[in-house]
């Protein structure tokens, strides 16, 4: 259990995580070089993007325990802001993505203000409803081309504009940087005062309040950081794909896909979103590529069945396979973890 660790042990563990992170960063930077297959490289770009997006979701959904089913809103706002700045004013997306991230963070505060009055499922539903409302408004808003969406015109091969004739390899590094920054933010946050406050809010709101934790501001802070990270990801995605419309920017499937890697990998853990994205994105992309082209729904069946079985069989996430414990569950003692394991073993037996 983390609270039982000696302070030195915690510092050592956090240093070790930084080292592992650096090694992984180097490995991922070298990985695409020997792989000449464009499809595989594209898959890695998406995996890194969703690892970063889901790390953003993880800050609010994992560490702070507020299950948001509307993160597509922040993705879409980031995407549209950067796309509009680029197409109308010619502002390069290296700047536009920060504007998008800032606006998305602001939107997260705006959504959080009414929604954080609710807790648990009520909050999840509120975020879902807000995202559907924004989707409808965007689909009908002529200023942003309504349902037609925005196409990013190719202007010049440039790192400042983030435009490349062959985008897959440069974007591997763009998305790697994005995922690495998202990871680093989560790492900093995990050890910060906010991190402890969020875990307290997640575990027991009443107890946290009795210890003078101001719950509402702490949730708002988590929402802003989370929304900001997601917004930057939306801007990068748009620049990579060259197109954004209301459904691909604000739709419910996107909200689910942002949340899922963290849920599958392990909510409230540093590595969960990465692991989840590494498993989920290939499965999702490959089933669509192999089976979905016929439009017969088998891809959706596999995807749905995978979500169901992972949620039931590995509720603590895939990171548990590597012996990593959730840092978010402060009350998870070693004894309870054993109980958790047996409960899960029972589930497997029943299945």
């Amino acid at each position, binding site marked *: 259990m983390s609270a039982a660790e000696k302070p030195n042990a915690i510092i050592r563990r956090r240093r070790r995580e930084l080292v592992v992170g650096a090694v992984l960063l180097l490995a991922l930077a070298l990985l695409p070089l020997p792989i000449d297959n464009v499809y595989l490289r594209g898959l890695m770009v998406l995996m890194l993007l969703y690892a970063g997006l889901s790390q953003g979701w993880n800050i609010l959904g994992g560490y702070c325990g507020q299950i948001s089913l509307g993160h597509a809103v922040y993705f879409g706002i980031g995407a549209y802001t950067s796309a509009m700045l680029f197409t109308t004013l010619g502002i390069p997306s290296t700047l536009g993505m920060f504007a998008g991230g800032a606006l998305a963070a602001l939107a997260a505060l705006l959504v959080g203000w009414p929604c954080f009055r609710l807790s648990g499922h009520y909050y999840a539903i509120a975020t879902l409803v807000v995202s*559907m409302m924004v989707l*409808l408004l965007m689909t*009908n808003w002529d200023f942003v081309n309504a349902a037609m969406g925005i196409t990013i015109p190719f202007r010049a091969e440039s790192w400042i504009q983030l435009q490349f004739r062959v985008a897959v390899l440069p974007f591997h590094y763009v998305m790697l940087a994005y995922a690495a920054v998202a990871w680093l933010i989560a790492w900093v946050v995990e050890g910060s005062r906010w991190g402890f406050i969020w875990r307290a809010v997640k575990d027991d709101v009443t107890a946290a309040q009795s210890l003078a934790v101001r719950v509402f501001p702490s949730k708002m802070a988590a929402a802003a950081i989370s929304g900001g990270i997601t917004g930057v990801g939306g801007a990068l995605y748009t620049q990579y794909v060259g197109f954004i419309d209301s459904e691909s920017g604000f739709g419910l499937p996107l909200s689910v896909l942002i949340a899922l890697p963290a849920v599958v990998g392990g909510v409230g853990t540093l590595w969960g979103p990465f692991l989840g994205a590494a498993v989920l994105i290939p499965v999702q992309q490959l089933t669509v590529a192999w089976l979905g082209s016929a439009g017969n*729904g*088998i891809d959706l069946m596999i995807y*749905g069945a995978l*979500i169901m079985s992972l949620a039931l069989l590995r509720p603590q996430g895939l990171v548990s396979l590597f012996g990593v414990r959730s840092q978010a569950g402060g009350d998870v003692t070693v004894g309870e973890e054993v109980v958790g394991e047996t*409960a899960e073993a029972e589930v497997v037996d029943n299945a």
Partner: protein
Amino acid sequence: MSAAIIAQVAIGGLLMGLVYALVAAGLSLIFGLMDVVNFAHGELLMLAMYATLTLHQAIGLDPLVQLPLVAMLLFGVGVAIYRGLIARALGIRFNTGMAQVFVTFGLSIFLVGTAQLVFGSDFRAITDGVLSNQTLALGKIVLPLSQVAAGLVCLLAFAALVLISRTEFGRALEATREDRDAVALIGIDRDKVFSIGWGIGAATVGIAGVMLANFYYISPTVGANFALIAYVTVALGGFGSLLGALIAGVLVGLVEAMTALFIDPSLKQVGIFAIYVMVLMVRPRGLFGRL
């Protein structure tokens, strides 16, 4: 815009609101009972509509005659979902809330895929039922008979739901809702109550689905829209409150119809969502929600 048109749209919205109310009641029942939000609720509706379509095309049964059949079928589906998935999700000790949300989410995606595989993605409709293409004229107000029937049947089903809540079983439901551990001491089988609760929740959606199939298009993704409205309705009326679901359902139907008439048909749901957000600010637990 004449008063007759406004009245006609208002009555149409009211009738649709009754359907929304019944769909929401099933969701609310399950939520109130065991604190589980069924994110596959809309897909149960879709399932009921396809069942109606299939029975209609295969053996020529009119949707109206199918009501008890499809309701029973959906009851079975509800029990199966509880036994197969929800009971297991409730037994999980890690991230229980998260597991429940994503189990039902996964189920909804799975069911949409299944429907696409079996029925294809085309929009279908029942055009030769007893109620198809019939209208009911009240002076200048002309209403499709299928919608009037849908509203009335849903109201009746709602009344039945209220009656069930007054029976011995209804009291067992209420007791289980109050304290799911203590009921075991007075001889109530919690698992049985939960699975019957899921059965009834799904059966009410089944009834709504049959009546909708009479006049609404049928597609694998038709449920998403209704589910979203059901979440709003339940949150507006207050989770676990039957009366709240009824009043909020009618309110949602009316607001939707009026937004479509006075502002823009493509924005009709924005009106609903706006009402929801407003109520959220003033009264987070909904109009009739218990704390």
